């Protein structure tokens, strides 16, 4: 059922404005103690009461599929259940501190950050961790900037290439470009992994870094990782680990042990902080010892004596800030709480069951899964069907579809990651939805969805005639 915009709900009260706005409703002047020439004349926004707003947002929430609505098997997105209690700890009044407080007055905050750094270092096998990046892509950016600073520091500022496998996350490419690097794209081999010969060809004295996801986006472990690391290091490059797929490996393998020099963690994936409809997340970055001096400033550490237990400091050759302050603090609290709740056993068990779930689900599907052995996710092929249509149709079966059309190495890809939070019963229900759609014809698929709040939405019209605000709608209609 349709919900009006706030601006439409308030037909009689649309404006706080100057006298001229009178014809549109009651105009509210912007009166201010400031001189007129420093202020605006009017402000036209809806004026609604609390009961009206409560109903508005309640209704909006009812038009959203969340993790508590059912399975959410988006590949590479790691849609885990978000434990409710982590919201409670992030909402503690003692967590609400201003970023410019004195160190001695926020020892609790600094301790939590230091302990989370320590946890993440252990989990990734990394020597030092920064929590500043506010998202995965921001973590990648730190990695790229750290690599640049490192090379610069070593008199190798000429290195201007970053190598990225074709099947990598789009952020890798965009981040390398933002860092000013040329991207060298690396094809996969027949098995869906890095082609060593192609890598050999791509590597050179201009290589700043290779960015790699492991397991890769097909869910396959890069078995040659040791050799890859050696090859990259041999030419003086750094090896970057994209942490989006870390939920496959907890307690089984660590990027640090595989030869990675720098990595990011997606706490909103691996450590179950909520996705929030697209953030906030957090993308902490771990590095090996040699790269520690280049990490963003300021960092947190245990103090060596003095009147505080924890302190902030600037690493010797820091790249500076990548965020105004210390990133998404409230998210980091939740990640800390999740890790502290699960501990060693819980984390390892999460990965084991995530991998089991992916393999079980794949075993129940009629769609072909061309590449294996996969871990926490797999990429099925919709074959003759259009993967995007398959996804739309799955909505009609009351489940969320997988990521589609990517990686392109699999035709009409259905990239599927159920995570550990689904039971066999739910996976069976999900498989039934996949399989039902697999049997259906193009006409049905193209018309889908037809059981959702909104039917298939016209993307072309949205892009051709952009209406990006209610003001634009009013002008338009």
């Amino acid at each position, binding site marked *: 059922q349709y*919900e009006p*915009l706030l601006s439409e709900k308030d037909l009689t009260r649309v404006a*706080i404005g100057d006298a001229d706005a009178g014809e549109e409703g009651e105009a*509210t002047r912007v009166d*201010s103690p400031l001189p007129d020439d*420093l*202020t*605006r004349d009017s*402000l036209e*926004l809806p004026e609604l009461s609390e009961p009206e707003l409560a109903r508005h947002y*309640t209704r*909006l929430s009812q038009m959203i*599929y*969340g*993790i508590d609505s059912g399975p*959410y098997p*988006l590949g590479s997105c790691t849609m*885990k259940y978000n434990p409710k209690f982590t919201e409670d700890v992030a909402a*503690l009044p003692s967590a*609400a501190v201003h*970023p410019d407080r004195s160190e001695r007055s*926020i020892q609790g905050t600094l*301790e939590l950050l230091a302990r989370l750094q320590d946890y993440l270092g*252990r989990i990734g096998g990394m020597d030092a961790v920064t929590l500043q990046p506010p998202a995965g892509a*921001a973590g990648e950016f730190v990695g790229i900037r750290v690599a640049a600073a490192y090379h610069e520091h070593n008199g190798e500022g000429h290195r201007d290439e970053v190598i990225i496998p074709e099947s990598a996350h*789009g952020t890798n*490419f*965009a981040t390398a*470009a933002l860092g000013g690097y040329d991207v060298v794209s690396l094809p996969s081999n027949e098995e869906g992994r890095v082609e060593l010969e192609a890598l050999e060809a791509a590597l050179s004295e201009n290589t700043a870094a290779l960015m790699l996801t492991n397991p890769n986006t097909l869910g396959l*472990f890069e*078995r040659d990782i040791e050799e890859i690391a050696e090859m990259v290091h041999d030419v003086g490059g750094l090896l970057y680990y994209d942490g989006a797929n870390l939920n496959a*490996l907890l307690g*089984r*393998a660590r990027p640090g042990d595989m030869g990675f020099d720098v990595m990011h963690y997606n706490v909103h994936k691996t450590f179950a902080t*909520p996705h*929030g*409809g*697209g*953030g*906030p997340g957090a993308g902490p970055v771990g590095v090996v010892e040699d790269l520690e001096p280049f990490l963003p400033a300021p960092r947190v550490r245990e103090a060596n004596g003095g009147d505080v237990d924890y302190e902030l400091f600037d690493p010797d050759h820091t790249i*500076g800030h990548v*965020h*105004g*302050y*210390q*990133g998404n603090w409230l998210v980091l609290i939740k990640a800390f709480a999740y890790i*502290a*709740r699960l*501990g060693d056993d819980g984390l390892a068990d999460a990965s*084991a069951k995530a991998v089991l779930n992916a393999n079980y689900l794949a075993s129940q599907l009629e769609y072909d899964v061309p590449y294996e052995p996969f871990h926490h996710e797999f990429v099925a092929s919709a074959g003759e069907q259009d993967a995007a249509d398959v996804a739309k149709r799955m909505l009609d079966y009351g489940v969320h579809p997988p990521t589609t059309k990517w990686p392109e190495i699999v035709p009409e890809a259905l990239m599927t990651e159920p995570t550990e939070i689904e039971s066999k019963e739910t996976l069976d229900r999900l498989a039934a939805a996949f399989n039902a759609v697999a049997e259906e014809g193009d006409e049905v698929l193209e*018309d889908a969805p037809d059981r959702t709040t909104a*039917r298939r939405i016209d*993307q072309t019209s*949205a892009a051709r005639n*952009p209406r*990006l*605000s209610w*003001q*634009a*709608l009013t002008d338009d209609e």
Partner: protein
Amino acid sequence: MHGSHETGSPYAPHTDDGRTAMLEAVGVETAADLFDIPAAVAFDDEFGIDARTERETRRLVRSVLERNDELTELLGRGHYGYYIPSLVDHLADRSEFLTSYTQYQPEVSQGFLQALFEYQSLLVELTGLEIANCSMYDAATALGEAATLADRVRDTSGHRVLVPDILREGRRSTLENYVAGTDLEVETYPTADGNADLEALEEIVDEETVMIYAENPTIRGTIEENLSAIGESAADAEALFVLGSDPVALSVLQRPADVGADVVIGDASVLGLPTSYGMGLGLFACRDDYLRQVPGRLVGASEDATDRRAFTLTLQTREQHIRRERATSNICTNQAWVALRTAMHAATLGPTGMVELANRGVRRADEVAQRLDDLEGVTAAVHDRHHLREFVAHVDQPAQEVADALEERGFAVHVVGEHELQLCVAGVTDEQLDAFVTAVSEVVR
């Protein structure tokens, strides 16, 4: 065994029977057999992290965070403890909002898309610009993105990005990182008590200038009085005029579009979030000339198959997941849920409430400055400039000593000069302000 769960993930629902059946279907003995990890890189040690019950974990976090002192914060400078109506927490915490993913399947995400569309509309009204994206990380990264936008859309071959000399460190440094991959260089122009030194600025601006950044209010809480002139300078140089502000300030201050701003950045979470150790919400709005170059996600209106209005992420060909290295930004996960909270907070205030909140910031800053100025040993130069929320006061004693003494009395303030404190009244109650003035009077006595 969930109630008394002792090992394994408490959030995995597997029964013994279920697991057995699944292993059988897959054809392995244990889940461990499914891992294809060469022995040489396998991890067979422990992290050494103890598992805890939910209750124990809550106690742990609480006990750690309780080490933070309870202080009345008069810190401001972009982060304010505005009271957040209870409705915001209750509604934003509904799990449909909190736990959903980016709206790549709009048909089951209409509610969030509409909320983000409303957030964009709020910013369009506040800035007067035609486009607002549905969030960047924070003001600093939004400023960085503004510079890369300037780089992409510049007509000249210039490379100069001009920022005020008192730009806060985090923003400046983040900006430097964002432009590191470009030819741009960040330079400063002089300011006086926060405001741009217009003459000096006009002298510095040249055809090499691709962007001028100014803030209103300034970091010292003063109102920038020469915005139109700065805008004209930028226009003359064909540079982008980027203005930093926030939703509360924009409720009463000159509309950016009216002073020639091409881009507005800032931290929108001054509404919606408590002070959260710097966690923010990057406000990013710009003129519609930059529609194809704007970074970040955009929600647009469209129609569904039954011709009813529906919302969707749009113009995604700008974004990294499609355009890769030619994307307008590398941003993926943004701050959507914070944007929701900001939109909710603004909606609960309504325009009247927003204007009043800003006006209170003017009146109370004035009032408190006056009261401090009346104290021996304090000069609050409030009459030469207009202030919003915060102001700088001169103290005869070393400022750090005064700040330390105030902290002991439960108040956190900024030291911004050897004898200068910066003080913010926003989010602080009248009773707290009274106590603060008393504390200052004791400390400077």
